[in-house]
């Protein structure tokens, strides 16, 4: 299978981010490529075909696990490493050099370099919370790149971390728990274990919690167990959702809850648990959803497929955008390949 075909068939997009200017969408995949989509192109009313994407390869050894955008930096979470790259808005280019790098410290008993699985960016305090493969959430000061605090408590790796500007942090992990943290307290303020709730447990799929999201009073989380809404103070499960797959994405979007994961649909539910919208996707599994409500409504859902799914009213699928095969300068690459035809070696089995 040729490399281009291989990448098209097995493109796995784990992370997306929208720029501060709200004009560009970044999508990073496990092949180490970051695609940049100009959102203005989507909003055009005329009939012209939209411009192709730009791609900025980070090297094939870089797994892009998560992305965040801060000021004019794109922050990439890779394996054992967080780095920032400058985004030039005028020229629409990502710098090829890393502006800064933060290494995740290896634990004493660790055998493997931990992944950086999830970011939550607190713009009010300029701090970045990174949920990592060693089960620790690191609070990083973006001013000086210091690790300010480590939130220890998970017994397996962290899937997802979200928070509140007032210092409340919530992290979910492979160990099946959601830890509630406060910046004033070393120990977690509370621990939620959805798999202990018989109503939620789906035994074949395990106890892991793949995604968590909060608003002022409510928390939604899911993974192996069914997705459900919990009240933040009473810690009680008030509503469960009938999402048929494993959950990798759940978010509060306006007054509804978005749930996605290993299923050929992503779904919107009302807070009462009623299905609002059932959106078919091509992803084998959806791993990332980013959205904005101003200057215009826009949501992009990405996952294990070569297409970004774009929603404009959060109820219906608007368009699908191909990634590999829809990149500026593709044609030139093809030409170059032809020139290498004379290469006689390296195409056979090795002898």
């Amino acid at each position, binding site marked *: 299978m040729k490399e281009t075909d*291989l990448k098209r*068939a097995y493109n*796995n997009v784990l992370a997306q981010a929208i720029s501060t200017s709200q004009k560009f969408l970044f999508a990073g995949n496990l092949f180490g490529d970051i695609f940049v989509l100009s959102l203005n192109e989507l909003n055009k009313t005329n009939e012209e075909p939209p411009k192709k994407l730009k791609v900025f390869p980070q090297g094939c050894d870089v797994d892009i*696990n998560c992305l965040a955008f801060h000021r004019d930096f794109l922050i990439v979470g890779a394996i054992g490493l967080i780095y920032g790259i400058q985004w030039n808005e005028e020229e629409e280019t990502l710098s090829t050099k890393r502006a800064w790098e933060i290494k995740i410290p290896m634990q004493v008993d660790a055998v*493997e370099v931990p992944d950086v699985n999830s970011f939550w960016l607190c713009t009010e305090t300029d701090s970045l919370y990174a949920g990592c493969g060693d089960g620790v959430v690191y609070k990083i000061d973006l001013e000086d790149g210091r690790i300010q605090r480590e939130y220890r408590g998970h017994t397996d790796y962290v899937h997802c971390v979200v928070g509140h500007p007032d210092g409340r942090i919530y992290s979910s992990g492979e160990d099946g728990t959601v830890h509630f943290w406060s910046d004033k307290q070393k120990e977690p303020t509370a621990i939620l274990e959805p798999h202990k709730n018989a109503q939620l447990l789906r*035994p074949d799929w395990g106890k892991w919690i793949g995604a968590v999201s909060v608003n002022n009073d409510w928390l939604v989380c899911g993974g192996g167990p069914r997705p459900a809404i919990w009240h933040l103070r009473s810690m009680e499960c008030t509503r469960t959702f009938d999402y048929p797959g494993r959950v990798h994405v759940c978010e509060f979007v306006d007054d509804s809850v978005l749930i996605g994961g*290993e299923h050929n649909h992503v779904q919107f539910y009302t807070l009462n648990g009623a299905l609002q919208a059932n959106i078919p996707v091509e992803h084998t599994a959806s791993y990332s959803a980013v959205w904005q409500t101003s200057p215009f409504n826009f949501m992009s859902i990405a996952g294990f497929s070569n297409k970004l799914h774009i929603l404009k009213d959060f109820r219906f699928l608007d368009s699908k955008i191909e990634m590999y095969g829809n990149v500026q300068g593709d044609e030139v690459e093809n030409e170059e390949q032809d020139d290498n035809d004379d290469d006689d070696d390296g195409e056979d089995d*090795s002898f």
Partner: protein
Amino acid sequence: MNMEDLLSTQFVKLKQAMDDLFELKSAGHVLELKQSSGVLMFVALKHANRKVKRNIKSGRDELHLQKSKVDLSRLQLQNLLYEVSHLKKEIVRCQKFKSRDTYLELLSDKEYASKFADEGSDKTNMSDHQTHLYRLECELRLRKELDNQYSALLTSKQELLQDNLKQTQKYLSFAPALRTLLESTKPLHDALQLSLDVEWKLSSIFKYLPRALYILFINLQALQRTRKEFASKVVGFESDQQMQELLLETENTLKERRHFTEKSNSCEAVPDNTLDRVLKCHPLHIHLVIDSPDKSSELVLIVRYWELLKCVTVRAQLNSTNNSNFQGDANLVEDLLGHLYPDDTGDHIPIPGIEYELQNLNLTAEQCLEYLVENGFGKPYCWLQSMCSIATVNKKQHFKHEFNLHKWIRKVFTRILKRWRSWLRLTQQIRGLTYKDVDLSASKENIYPDGLSCSLVQWTAISSEEFNIQNAGLIYNLTPSNGITYTSYRAVIVRGSAKMECFIRIPSNYPLDIPLWILSVHWNGRHTSMNNAAIKMMEFWTNSLQPSQLKKGNRLLYSQLFRTIYSFDIFLETEGAMQTVREYNKEKPYISTFTKRIRLRPYKYIMKGSTFTFKQ
């Protein structure tokens, strides 16, 4: 005082005197004195008259003088006028004048400068005309010299011809003697087992080969001396006479064809059987025999030259020496040659401008190709034309004219052999899998022999349609194939109650493209790359194996199979960890069951020293 006044004063005076006299007379006076003074006046009058006469004469003389002057100047002017008209005529004539040298073909400026560089040193102060004249002079000289040389050469040529004639006659006189010598030494040849005859015969064939084939053949002969894998020979030769006849015939058909084109302009339709006549290939063709890498069969390439199409075609056939025909052999050769170079499938005639020449004959390139393929003459691949030093234009309009034939032919052969070897290895692997006559657990591609828990229970060929039906989702994502055909297989791998179906698609341009695997796990429902990310990652891991990553001696298909088997094991073991009733325990060495948000399983294997681990 002018003449009129002179006379009139005299007359006035005379009249006065007369009047006075008349008065006096009428008064009766007679005055003698007055009369005499009056008479004197007549004298004065006479004097005045004479004076006037003289004046008139001198005036007339002067007039005459002036008149002659005027006449003279008039004459001069006339002369001038005449001269002007004459000059005008002269100018016109000058203008109409053309020197003969303008009709001469002169040397170009550059040549002239180089030939007469030393002589024309003083031409800086010459006018254009002068330099031209000088140049003409020089060239005249040169021409004369050359003419001399020419005649000298002509005479020497004549002499040589004469000489030649003499020598030929001389040698011809030897012929009968030599012939008798040959006859008489024949028994000696036989006794010594010399094969001089054969070589003579061969070289006599060469001269009838068309240019392209001749070039190919000579190069092959040269290569044959160093490499033993192949042999070449010219086929179609019977006798000199037959050859001559054939050549004559071709010439005739050529003429006929010309005639035919003239005719065909009037009647448009070309009957199909004429294609046979018009396209006729050269009677001689080259047989090229290549031994297979394992010496079990030989590949015969029949190279023909087509006068009209100006290209060569190759038809291949496989002669097996030990009748062990297996599936895929029939297409093997065609696939081998058709995909030797990318985008060179021989589906068009790669000769520049051939369409137009064919158009003149009311033919199309497609028609000709169809004819070639239908009648089993093979295809005109670009690489083949290059072997015969024929310029080609490929589908992308790249022009190529190979001159380093020696290198190119060697390269093509190496490539054919290499491809063939890969194919043989592949067919061997497939045969091994189909008939299960390989011990998989002992195979060297088995990376972790202790941990092989799955078993391959079935490997069968399926039709492409079946393959496409099974895997509609993924095929849709791939770039369209150009001229590549696929053979598909279905493999079944079993472990406990779990079953995995693998659909394998092998492209005809292997090993340019490598086999594609599509997996489908049947265990608590059907899991494919369409509905299960873990299966999709597994499939990616299998398909991402590139031949360049293989260890020395490892076979691709087996390596892919083992990758798949281990991935399946890992899948079951990691999936099983969550089951309430465990069916599969962890048997493989891996550190973490899942990593990342996608819950990636440790499909990859790494060898660190002697320890073997699976990793994400």
